[in-house]
Protein backbone atom coordinates (compact mmCIF):
# COMPACT_ATOMS: atom_id res chain seq x y z
CA UNK A 1 0.00 0.00 0.00
CA UNK A 2 2.61 2.47 1.12
CA UNK A 3 4.96 1.37 -1.62
CA UNK A 4 2.26 1.94 -4.19
CA UNK A 5 1.62 5.43 -2.92
CA UNK A 6 5.32 6.15 -2.87
CA UNK A 7 5.74 4.87 -6.41
CA UNK A 8 2.82 6.96 -7.61
CA UNK A 9 4.17 10.01 -5.86
CA UNK A 10 7.59 9.38 -7.34
CA UNK A 11 6.18 9.12 -10.84
CA UNK A 12 4.19 12.29 -10.30
CA UNK A 13 7.26 14.18 -9.18
CA UNK A 14 9.39 12.95 -12.07
CA UNK A 15 6.72 13.81 -14.62
CA UNK A 16 6.15 17.20 -13.06
CA UNK A 17 9.83 18.00 -13.17
CA UNK A 18 10.11 16.87 -16.77
CA UNK A 19 7.13 18.93 -17.81
CA UNK A 20 8.41 21.96 -15.97
CA UNK A 21 11.80 21.59 -17.55
CA UNK A 22 10.29 21.15 -20.99
CA UNK A 23 8.18 24.25 -20.51
CA UNK A 24 11.31 26.30 -19.87
CA UNK A 25 13.58 24.54 -22.30
CA UNK A 26 11.24 24.56 -25.28
CA UNK A 27 9.55 27.85 -24.68
CA UNK A 28 8.36 29.34 -27.93
CA UNK A 29 9.87 32.73 -28.46
CA UNK A 30 7.10 33.81 -30.82
CA UNK A 31 6.59 37.19 -32.37
CA UNK A 32 4.24 39.34 -30.41
CA UNK A 33 0.64 38.65 -31.22
CA UNK A 34 0.17 41.84 -33.20
CA UNK A 35 2.90 40.87 -35.65
CA UNK A 36 1.34 37.47 -36.13
CA UNK A 37 -2.07 38.93 -36.80
CA UNK A 38 -0.60 41.54 -39.10
CA UNK A 39 1.16 38.81 -41.06
CA UNK A 40 -2.23 37.26 -41.84
CA UNK A 41 -3.92 40.49 -42.88
CA UNK A 42 -3.66 41.16 -46.63
CA UNK A 43 -1.98 44.57 -46.27
CA UNK A 44 -4.37 46.18 -48.68
CA UNK A 45 -4.48 49.09 -46.23
CA UNK A 46 -7.97 49.99 -47.35
CA UNK A 47 -9.45 50.85 -44.00
CA UNK A 48 -12.65 48.92 -44.63
CA UNK A 49 -12.19 47.27 -41.27
CA UNK A 50 -12.75 50.64 -39.65
CA UNK A 51 -9.11 51.20 -38.76
CA UNK A 52 -6.55 53.27 -40.65
CA UNK A 53 -4.65 50.33 -42.07
CA UNK A 54 -3.94 46.71 -41.34
CA UNK A 55 -1.54 47.23 -38.47
CA UNK A 56 -3.99 49.29 -36.39
CA UNK A 57 -6.64 46.64 -37.01
CA UNK A 58 -4.17 43.97 -35.91
CA UNK A 59 -3.55 45.92 -32.73
CA UNK A 60 -7.27 46.27 -32.16
CA UNK A 61 -7.79 42.53 -32.57
CA UNK A 62 -4.95 41.78 -30.23
CA UNK A 63 -6.46 44.09 -27.62
CA UNK A 64 -9.86 42.54 -28.08
CA UNK A 65 -11.34 45.76 -29.43
CA UNK A 66 -12.29 44.42 -32.83
CA UNK A 67 -13.75 41.21 -34.14
CA UNK A 68 -11.88 38.98 -36.55
CA UNK A 69 -14.35 39.24 -39.43
CA UNK A 70 -13.94 42.85 -40.47
CA UNK A 71 -11.42 42.59 -43.28
CA UNK A 72 -13.12 42.06 -46.66
CA UNK A 73 -9.92 41.86 -48.74
CA UNK A 74 -8.68 39.01 -46.56
CA UNK A 75 -11.89 37.14 -47.29
CA UNK A 76 -13.21 34.04 -45.58
CA UNK A 77 -9.81 32.45 -45.74
CA UNK A 78 -8.32 35.32 -43.81
CA UNK A 79 -10.99 35.01 -41.13
CA UNK A 80 -10.32 31.30 -40.94
CA UNK A 81 -6.63 31.87 -40.43
CA UNK A 82 -7.27 34.46 -37.76
CA UNK A 83 -9.68 32.08 -36.05
CA UNK A 84 -7.01 29.39 -36.11
CA UNK A 85 -4.37 31.69 -34.74
CA UNK A 86 -6.52 33.04 -31.96
CA UNK A 87 -8.37 29.82 -31.21
CA UNK A 88 -11.74 31.38 -31.88
CA UNK A 89 -14.80 30.27 -33.79
CA UNK A 90 -14.91 31.03 -37.48
CA UNK A 91 -17.57 33.49 -38.46
CA UNK A 92 -18.56 34.82 -41.87
CA UNK A 93 -17.40 38.27 -42.94
CA UNK A 94 -19.46 40.99 -41.36
CA UNK A 95 -21.39 42.68 -44.11
CA UNK A 96 -21.22 46.18 -42.73
CA UNK A 97 -17.52 46.23 -43.54
CA UNK A 98 -17.94 45.23 -47.15
CA UNK A 99 -17.74 42.15 -49.30
CA UNK A 100 -14.88 40.15 -50.75
CA UNK A 101 -14.08 41.24 -54.32
CA UNK A 102 -11.69 39.94 -56.93
CA UNK A 103 -8.36 41.68 -56.66
CA UNK A 104 -8.27 44.85 -58.75
CA UNK A 105 -5.87 47.65 -59.43
CA UNK A 106 -6.51 51.31 -60.00
CA UNK A 107 -6.04 52.69 -63.47
CA UNK A 108 -5.92 56.43 -64.13
CA UNK A 109 -7.32 57.75 -67.36
CA UNK A 110 -4.31 59.83 -68.28
CA UNK A 111 -6.24 61.93 -70.79
CA UNK A 112 -8.57 63.23 -68.12
CA UNK A 113 -6.23 63.61 -65.14
CA UNK A 114 -5.62 67.25 -64.16
CA UNK A 115 -2.64 66.55 -61.96
CA UNK A 116 -4.13 67.73 -58.68
CA UNK A 117 -2.10 65.21 -56.59
CA UNK A 118 -5.09 64.40 -54.41
CA UNK A 119 -4.84 60.72 -55.25
CA UNK A 120 -1.16 60.65 -54.32
CA UNK A 121 -2.05 61.91 -50.91
CA UNK A 122 -4.73 59.29 -50.52
CA UNK A 123 -2.71 56.29 -51.59
CA UNK A 124 -1.52 54.38 -48.54
CA UNK A 125 1.36 52.65 -50.30
CA UNK A 126 2.62 55.46 -52.56
CA UNK A 127 1.67 53.51 -55.65
CA UNK A 128 0.84 56.60 -57.70
CA UNK A 129 3.51 58.68 -59.37
CA UNK A 130 3.18 62.10 -60.90
CA UNK A 131 3.97 65.67 -60.14
CA UNK A 132 1.56 68.50 -59.64
CA UNK A 133 -0.15 69.67 -62.81
CA UNK A 134 1.08 66.57 -64.59
CA UNK A 135 -0.62 63.43 -65.50
CA UNK A 136 -0.57 60.74 -62.83
CA UNK A 137 -0.07 57.03 -63.23
CA UNK A 138 -0.56 54.00 -61.01
CA UNK A 139 2.43 51.72 -60.68
CA UNK A 140 0.51 48.50 -61.07
CA UNK A 141 2.69 46.05 -59.15
CA UNK A 142 2.58 48.34 -56.13
CA UNK A 143 -1.16 49.00 -56.09
CA UNK A 144 -3.02 46.99 -53.48
CA UNK A 145 -6.44 47.75 -54.88
CA UNK A 146 -7.63 49.58 -51.79
CA UNK A 147 -9.80 52.04 -53.76
CA UNK A 148 -8.85 54.93 -51.48
CA UNK A 149 -7.72 57.02 -54.43
CA UNK A 150 -11.01 56.71 -56.28
CA UNK A 151 -13.17 59.00 -54.15
CA UNK A 152 -10.80 61.99 -53.83
CA UNK A 153 -10.32 62.42 -57.57
CA UNK A 154 -12.16 65.59 -58.58
CA UNK A 155 -12.59 64.53 -62.19
CA UNK A 156 -13.45 60.86 -61.56
CA UNK A 157 -10.72 59.55 -63.78
CA UNK A 158 -9.65 56.62 -61.64
CA UNK A 159 -11.23 53.26 -62.32
CA UNK A 160 -10.74 49.95 -60.56
CA UNK A 161 -9.93 47.18 -63.04
CA UNK A 162 -10.00 43.55 -61.93
CA UNK A 163 -6.68 41.81 -62.46
CA UNK A 164 -6.96 39.38 -65.35
CA UNK A 165 -5.42 35.93 -65.06
CA UNK A 166 -2.28 35.55 -67.14
CA UNK A 167 -0.23 32.54 -68.11
CA UNK A 168 2.10 33.64 -65.36
CA UNK A 169 -0.51 33.72 -62.59
CA UNK A 170 -2.68 30.86 -63.84
CA UNK A 171 -2.95 27.94 -61.46
CA UNK A 172 -3.76 24.26 -61.89
CA UNK A 173 -7.13 23.46 -60.42
CA UNK A 174 -7.76 21.01 -57.66
CA UNK A 175 -8.20 17.61 -59.32
CA UNK A 176 -11.84 16.60 -59.47
CA UNK A 177 -12.52 13.58 -57.37
CA UNK A 178 -14.50 11.37 -59.66
CA UNK A 179 -15.67 8.85 -57.11
CA UNK A 180 -19.18 10.16 -56.89
CA UNK A 181 -19.78 10.64 -60.56
CA UNK A 182 -19.39 6.96 -61.23
CA UNK A 183 -21.88 5.93 -58.60
Amino acid at each position, binding site marked *: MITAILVMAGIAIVLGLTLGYAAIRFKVEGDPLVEKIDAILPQTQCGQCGFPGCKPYAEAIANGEADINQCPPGGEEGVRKLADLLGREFKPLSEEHGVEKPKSVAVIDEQVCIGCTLCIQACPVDAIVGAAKQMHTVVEPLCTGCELCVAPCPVDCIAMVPLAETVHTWKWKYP*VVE*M*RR*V*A
Partner: protein
Amino acid sequence: MIHSPYVRKAVSVQRTMGLVLLALIPGIVAHALLIGPGVLVNLAISTITAVGAEALMLHLRKRPVAIAVGDLSAVVTAWLVTLCFPPIVPWWLTVCGALVAIVAVKHLYGGLGQNPFNPAMIAYCSMIVAFPALMSQWPPAGQLSFDTQLALILGGARDIDGITGATALDALRTGLRSGTQTVDAVLQGSAFGALGGRGWEWISVGYVAGGLFLLAKRIITWHMPLAFIGVLAGISTLFWLLDPGRFASPLFHLASGGAMLAAFFIVTDPVSGATTPRGKLLFAGGIALIAWLIRNFGAYPEGIAFGVLLMNMCVPLLDMKTQPPVFGHHKDAKGGGK
Protein backbone atom coordinates in the same frame (compact mmCIF):
# COMPACT_ATOMS: atom_id res chain seq x y z
CA MET B 1 -10.37 16.60 -68.37
CA ILE B 2 -7.34 14.40 -68.15
CA HIS B 3 -3.80 15.64 -68.04
CA SER B 4 -0.48 13.95 -68.36
CA PRO B 5 0.36 11.18 -67.98
CA TYR B 6 -2.25 10.06 -70.47
CA VAL B 7 -1.19 6.43 -70.42
CA ARG B 8 -1.28 4.07 -67.48
CA LYS B 9 0.09 0.70 -66.70
CA ALA B 10 -2.51 -2.05 -66.76
CA VAL B 11 -2.77 -2.30 -63.01
CA SER B 12 -5.62 -1.84 -60.58
CA VAL B 13 -6.49 -2.43 -56.98
CA GLN B 14 -8.65 -5.29 -58.18
CA ARG B 15 -5.69 -6.96 -59.86
CA THR B 16 -3.51 -6.53 -56.79
CA MET B 17 -6.12 -7.99 -54.50
CA GLY B 18 -6.89 -10.77 -56.98
CA LEU B 19 -3.26 -11.82 -57.00
CA VAL B 20 -3.21 -11.87 -53.22
CA LEU B 21 -6.24 -14.16 -53.24
CA LEU B 22 -4.55 -16.37 -55.80
CA ALA B 23 -1.45 -16.55 -53.66
CA LEU B 24 -3.49 -17.69 -50.67
CA ILE B 25 -4.87 -20.70 -52.53
CA PRO B 26 -1.96 -23.15 -52.05
CA GLY B 27 -2.15 -22.66 -48.31
CA ILE B 28 -5.92 -23.04 -48.32
CA VAL B 29 -5.74 -26.22 -50.38
CA ALA B 30 -3.20 -27.70 -48.03
CA HIS B 31 -5.39 -26.66 -45.15
CA ALA B 32 -8.48 -28.32 -46.61
CA LEU B 33 -6.62 -31.51 -47.44
CA LEU B 34 -4.71 -31.98 -44.22
CA ILE B 35 -6.96 -30.58 -41.55
CA GLY B 36 -10.29 -30.97 -43.21
CA PRO B 37 -12.56 -28.98 -45.47
CA GLY B 38 -14.19 -27.09 -42.62
CA VAL B 39 -12.07 -24.09 -43.45
CA LEU B 40 -13.78 -23.81 -46.80
CA VAL B 41 -17.14 -23.44 -45.12
CA ASN B 42 -15.86 -20.70 -42.87
CA LEU B 43 -14.20 -19.00 -45.84
CA ALA B 44 -17.51 -18.91 -47.63
CA ILE B 45 -19.29 -17.55 -44.56
CA SER B 46 -16.74 -14.81 -43.97
CA THR B 47 -16.59 -13.82 -47.64
CA ILE B 48 -20.34 -13.40 -47.85
CA THR B 49 -20.44 -11.48 -44.60
CA ALA B 50 -17.56 -9.21 -45.50
CA VAL B 51 -18.76 -8.36 -48.97
CA GLY B 52 -22.27 -7.75 -47.67
CA ALA B 53 -20.98 -5.53 -44.89
CA GLU B 54 -18.73 -3.69 -47.33
CA ALA B 55 -21.61 -2.99 -49.69
CA LEU B 56 -23.83 -1.86 -46.84
CA MET B 57 -21.20 0.43 -45.38
CA LEU B 58 -20.40 1.96 -48.75
CA HIS B 59 -24.08 2.54 -49.30
CA LEU B 60 -24.43 4.18 -45.89
CA ARG B 61 -21.39 6.33 -46.54
CA LYS B 62 -22.87 7.29 -49.93
CA ARG B 63 -19.97 5.95 -51.92
CA PRO B 64 -20.21 4.13 -55.22
CA VAL B 65 -20.80 0.52 -54.24
CA ALA B 66 -19.93 -1.29 -57.46
CA ILE B 67 -16.28 -0.35 -57.99
CA ALA B 68 -15.38 -0.44 -54.35
CA VAL B 69 -16.83 -3.91 -53.84
CA GLY B 70 -15.32 -4.99 -57.11
CA ASP B 71 -11.84 -4.18 -55.89
CA LEU B 72 -11.87 -7.46 -53.90
CA SER B 73 -10.29 -5.88 -50.85
CA ALA B 74 -13.14 -7.07 -48.64
CA VAL B 75 -12.63 -10.62 -49.87
CA VAL B 76 -8.94 -10.48 -48.98
CA THR B 77 -9.80 -9.25 -45.50
CA ALA B 78 -12.41 -11.99 -45.11
CA TRP B 79 -10.01 -14.73 -46.14
CA LEU B 80 -7.29 -13.51 -43.83
CA VAL B 81 -9.73 -13.33 -40.93
CA THR B 82 -10.80 -16.91 -41.51
CA LEU B 83 -7.30 -18.23 -42.02
CA CYS B 84 -6.10 -16.94 -38.70
CA PHE B 85 -9.15 -18.32 -36.89
CA PRO B 86 -9.33 -21.98 -36.00
CA PRO B 87 -11.14 -23.70 -38.88
CA ILE B 88 -13.90 -25.13 -36.73
CA VAL B 89 -15.11 -22.01 -34.99
CA PRO B 90 -18.89 -21.73 -35.04
CA TRP B 91 -20.32 -19.72 -37.90
CA TRP B 92 -21.36 -16.77 -35.79
CA LEU B 93 -17.81 -16.26 -34.62
CA THR B 94 -16.66 -16.00 -38.20
CA VAL B 95 -19.45 -13.57 -38.92
CA CYS B 96 -18.49 -11.47 -35.92
CA GLY B 97 -14.86 -11.47 -36.95
CA ALA B 98 -15.62 -10.39 -40.48
CA LEU B 99 -17.99 -7.68 -39.27
CA VAL B 100 -15.47 -6.30 -36.84
CA ALA B 101 -12.82 -6.22 -39.55
CA ILE B 102 -14.96 -4.55 -42.21
CA VAL B 103 -17.27 -2.30 -40.24
CA ALA B 104 -15.30 -1.26 -37.22
CA VAL B 105 -11.74 -1.33 -38.46
CA LYS B 106 -12.09 -0.45 -42.11
CA HIS B 107 -15.12 1.71 -42.63
CA LEU B 108 -15.37 3.56 -39.36
CA TYR B 109 -11.88 4.83 -40.10
CA GLY B 110 -12.82 6.00 -43.57
CA GLY B 111 -12.76 2.95 -45.80
CA LEU B 112 -10.11 1.41 -47.97
CA GLY B 113 -6.69 2.84 -47.40
CA GLN B 114 -7.60 4.76 -44.25
CA ASN B 115 -7.47 2.18 -41.49
CA PRO B 116 -4.47 2.51 -39.23
CA PHE B 117 -4.86 -1.06 -37.96
CA ASN B 118 -4.80 -4.38 -39.69
CA PRO B 119 -8.47 -5.48 -39.89
CA ALA B 120 -7.81 -9.20 -39.72
CA MET B 121 -5.60 -8.80 -36.68
CA ILE B 122 -8.14 -6.69 -34.81
CA ALA B 123 -10.74 -9.31 -35.59
CA TYR B 124 -8.45 -12.03 -34.26
CA CYS B 125 -7.52 -10.14 -31.12
CA SER B 126 -11.03 -9.08 -30.23
CA MET B 127 -12.34 -12.61 -30.71
CA ILE B 128 -9.57 -14.29 -28.75
CA VAL B 129 -10.19 -11.90 -25.89
CA ALA B 130 -13.95 -12.40 -26.06
CA PHE B 131 -14.05 -16.13 -26.75
CA PRO B 132 -10.72 -17.54 -25.62
CA ALA B 133 -11.93 -21.11 -25.48
CA LEU B 134 -13.49 -21.24 -28.93
CA MET B 135 -10.54 -19.43 -30.44
CA SER B 136 -8.10 -22.01 -29.06
CA GLN B 137 -9.68 -25.14 -30.45
CA TRP B 138 -7.43 -26.15 -33.28
CA PRO B 139 -8.31 -29.53 -34.74
CA PRO B 140 -5.42 -31.93 -35.20
CA ALA B 141 -4.51 -33.00 -38.67
CA GLY B 142 -6.89 -35.35 -40.45
CA GLN B 143 -8.81 -36.49 -37.38
CA LEU B 144 -12.12 -34.80 -37.80
CA SER B 145 -14.42 -35.83 -40.59
CA PHE B 146 -16.06 -33.18 -42.68
CA ASP B 147 -19.40 -34.00 -41.06
CA THR B 148 -18.04 -33.36 -37.60
CA GLN B 149 -16.43 -30.11 -38.71
CA LEU B 150 -19.59 -28.96 -40.38
CA ALA B 151 -21.60 -29.80 -37.30
CA LEU B 152 -19.21 -27.84 -35.14
CA ILE B 153 -19.29 -24.87 -37.43
CA LEU B 154 -23.05 -24.90 -37.54
CA GLY B 155 -23.09 -24.72 -33.80
CA GLY B 156 -23.30 -28.34 -32.76
CA ALA B 157 -22.47 -29.38 -29.23
CA ARG B 158 -18.80 -29.06 -28.53
CA ASP B 159 -17.11 -31.75 -26.55
CA ILE B 160 -14.08 -29.62 -26.37
CA ASP B 161 -11.37 -31.83 -25.03
CA GLY B 162 -12.54 -34.85 -26.92
CA ILE B 163 -12.24 -33.39 -30.35
CA THR B 164 -9.43 -30.91 -30.33
CA GLY B 165 -5.91 -31.32 -29.35
CA ALA B 166 -3.70 -28.55 -28.22
CA THR B 167 -1.82 -26.82 -30.97
CA ALA B 168 1.88 -27.16 -31.12
CA LEU B 169 2.44 -23.78 -29.57
CA ASP B 170 -0.13 -24.50 -26.86
CA ALA B 171 1.33 -27.83 -26.02
CA LEU B 172 4.77 -26.40 -25.86
CA ARG B 173 3.78 -23.63 -23.56
CA THR B 174 1.72 -25.87 -21.22
CA GLY B 175 4.47 -28.42 -21.18
CA LEU B 176 7.14 -25.90 -20.34
CA ARG B 177 5.00 -24.06 -17.83
CA SER B 178 4.37 -27.24 -15.91
CA GLY B 179 8.06 -27.18 -15.29
CA THR B 180 8.53 -30.88 -15.65
CA GLN B 181 9.22 -31.22 -19.32
CA THR B 182 11.90 -29.99 -21.64
CA VAL B 183 11.32 -28.91 -25.21
CA ASP B 184 12.48 -32.22 -26.57
CA ALA B 185 10.09 -34.14 -24.38
CA VAL B 186 7.18 -31.97 -25.38
CA LEU B 187 8.01 -32.27 -29.03
CA GLN B 188 7.56 -36.01 -28.85
CA GLY B 189 3.83 -35.46 -28.33
CA SER B 190 1.22 -36.27 -30.88
CA ALA B 191 0.63 -32.66 -31.87
CA PHE B 192 4.01 -32.33 -33.46
CA GLY B 193 5.20 -33.17 -36.88
CA ALA B 194 8.57 -32.93 -38.50
CA LEU B 195 8.89 -29.17 -38.28
CA GLY B 196 6.11 -27.74 -36.15
CA GLY B 197 2.48 -28.59 -35.57
CA ARG B 198 1.63 -31.77 -37.45
CA GLY B 199 -0.11 -31.01 -40.70
CA TRP B 200 0.16 -27.29 -40.07
CA GLU B 201 3.74 -27.30 -41.19
CA TRP B 202 2.66 -28.16 -44.74
CA ILE B 203 0.12 -25.39 -44.72
CA SER B 204 2.98 -23.08 -43.88
CA VAL B 205 4.81 -24.38 -46.90
CA GLY B 206 1.74 -23.51 -48.98
CA TYR B 207 1.80 -19.94 -47.68
CA VAL B 208 5.48 -19.63 -48.46
CA ALA B 209 4.78 -20.71 -52.02
CA GLY B 210 2.06 -18.07 -52.30
CA GLY B 211 4.36 -15.46 -50.78
CA LEU B 212 7.09 -16.21 -53.28
CA PHE B 213 4.51 -15.81 -56.03
CA LEU B 214 3.61 -12.35 -54.68
CA LEU B 215 7.27 -11.44 -54.52
CA ALA B 216 7.76 -12.56 -58.10
CA LYS B 217 4.73 -10.52 -59.16
CA ARG B 218 6.14 -7.54 -57.24
CA ILE B 219 2.98 -7.13 -55.22
CA ILE B 220 5.05 -7.18 -52.05
CA THR B 221 8.68 -6.28 -51.55
CA TRP B 222 11.25 -8.48 -49.88
CA HIS B 223 11.71 -6.14 -46.93
CA MET B 224 8.90 -7.24 -44.67
CA PRO B 225 9.01 -11.03 -45.08
CA LEU B 226 12.77 -11.01 -44.79
CA ALA B 227 12.84 -8.83 -41.70
CA PHE B 228 10.06 -10.79 -40.08
CA ILE B 229 11.55 -14.21 -40.75
CA GLY B 230 15.05 -12.97 -40.09
CA VAL B 231 14.30 -11.50 -36.69
CA LEU B 232 12.12 -14.41 -35.63
CA ALA B 233 14.75 -16.91 -36.70
CA GLY B 234 17.59 -14.85 -35.29
CA ILE B 235 16.23 -14.34 -31.84
CA SER B 236 14.90 -17.87 -31.47
CA THR B 237 18.23 -19.30 -32.63
CA LEU B 238 20.05 -17.21 -30.07
CA PHE B 239 17.95 -18.40 -27.16
CA TRP B 240 17.74 -21.93 -28.45
CA LEU B 241 21.50 -22.13 -28.50
CA LEU B 242 21.69 -20.67 -25.01
CA ASP B 243 19.19 -23.09 -23.51
CA PRO B 244 17.72 -25.67 -25.85
CA GLY B 245 15.81 -27.13 -22.93
CA ARG B 246 13.66 -24.07 -22.45
CA PHE B 247 13.43 -22.50 -25.86
CA ALA B 248 12.18 -24.07 -29.06
CA SER B 249 14.23 -24.15 -32.21
CA PRO B 250 13.95 -21.47 -34.89
CA LEU B 251 12.54 -23.99 -37.31
CA PHE B 252 9.77 -24.75 -34.89
CA HIS B 253 8.96 -21.08 -34.48
CA LEU B 254 8.88 -20.44 -38.19
CA ALA B 255 6.74 -23.44 -39.04
CA SER B 256 4.27 -23.04 -36.19
CA GLY B 257 1.19 -20.96 -35.73
CA GLY B 258 0.61 -18.32 -38.32
CA ALA B 259 4.23 -17.35 -38.83
CA MET B 260 4.33 -17.87 -42.59
CA LEU B 261 0.83 -16.56 -43.16
CA ALA B 262 1.89 -13.49 -41.23
CA ALA B 263 5.24 -13.10 -42.94
CA PHE B 264 3.81 -12.94 -46.43
CA PHE B 265 0.19 -11.87 -46.05
CA ILE B 266 -0.48 -10.15 -42.74
CA VAL B 267 2.64 -8.14 -42.03
CA THR B 268 2.75 -7.05 -45.66
CA ASP B 269 -0.69 -5.42 -45.57
CA PRO B 270 0.15 -2.14 -47.29
CA VAL B 271 -2.55 0.04 -45.79
CA SER B 272 -1.64 -0.27 -42.14
CA GLY B 273 2.05 -0.96 -42.57
CA ALA B 274 5.15 1.18 -42.86
CA THR B 275 5.98 2.47 -46.32
CA THR B 276 9.64 3.38 -46.48
CA PRO B 277 12.20 0.63 -47.05
CA ARG B 278 13.85 1.11 -43.67
CA GLY B 279 10.47 1.58 -42.06
CA LYS B 280 9.32 -1.74 -43.48
CA LEU B 281 12.33 -3.54 -42.06
CA LEU B 282 11.81 -2.05 -38.61
CA PHE B 283 8.06 -2.66 -38.74
CA ALA B 284 8.29 -6.34 -39.64
CA GLY B 285 11.26 -6.92 -37.37
CA GLY B 286 9.37 -5.32 -34.50
CA ILE B 287 6.42 -7.61 -35.05
CA ALA B 288 8.64 -10.68 -35.03
CA LEU B 289 10.29 -9.59 -31.82
CA ILE B 290 6.99 -8.94 -30.04
CA ALA B 291 5.56 -12.20 -31.38
CA TRP B 292 8.51 -14.18 -30.04
CA LEU B 293 8.32 -12.45 -26.68
CA ILE B 294 4.62 -13.18 -26.31
CA ARG B 295 5.06 -16.76 -27.46
CA ASN B 296 7.69 -17.35 -24.82
CA PHE B 297 6.72 -15.12 -21.95
CA GLY B 298 3.21 -13.83 -22.57
CA ALA B 299 -0.23 -15.04 -21.64
CA TYR B 300 -1.24 -16.08 -25.14
CA PRO B 301 0.27 -18.87 -27.15
CA GLU B 302 0.42 -16.79 -30.33
CA GLY B 303 1.66 -13.22 -30.30
CA ILE B 304 1.82 -12.18 -33.92
CA ALA B 305 -1.55 -10.43 -33.89
CA PHE B 306 -0.61 -8.29 -30.92
CA GLY B 307 2.75 -7.58 -32.49
CA VAL B 308 1.09 -6.36 -35.65
CA LEU B 309 -1.28 -4.08 -33.78
CA LEU B 310 1.44 -2.65 -31.60
CA MET B 311 3.62 -1.95 -34.59
CA ASN B 312 0.65 -0.47 -36.49
CA MET B 313 0.63 2.22 -33.85
CA CYS B 314 4.25 3.01 -34.57
CA VAL B 315 3.77 3.36 -38.32
CA PRO B 316 3.40 7.14 -38.53
CA LEU B 317 6.51 7.57 -36.45
CA LEU B 318 8.45 4.95 -38.39
CA ASP B 319 7.46 6.54 -41.70
CA MET B 320 8.38 9.99 -40.54
CA LYS B 321 11.73 9.00 -39.12
CA THR B 322 12.81 6.82 -42.01
CA GLN B 323 12.10 9.05 -44.99
CA PRO B 324 14.66 8.04 -47.57
CA PRO B 325 16.91 10.75 -49.00
CA VAL B 326 15.67 12.09 -52.32
CA PHE B 327 17.60 12.35 -55.57
CA GLY B 328 20.60 14.59 -55.15
CA HIS B 329 20.59 14.42 -51.37
CA HIS B 330 22.31 11.09 -50.91
CA LYS B 331 25.36 11.47 -48.78
CA ASP B 332 27.62 10.08 -51.46
CA ALA B 333 25.90 11.77 -54.38
CA LYS B 334 27.93 14.94 -54.77
CA GLY B 335 31.13 13.54 -56.06
CA GLY B 336 29.10 11.02 -57.98
CA GLY B 337 30.43 7.57 -58.60
CA LYS B 338 33.81 8.85 -59.60
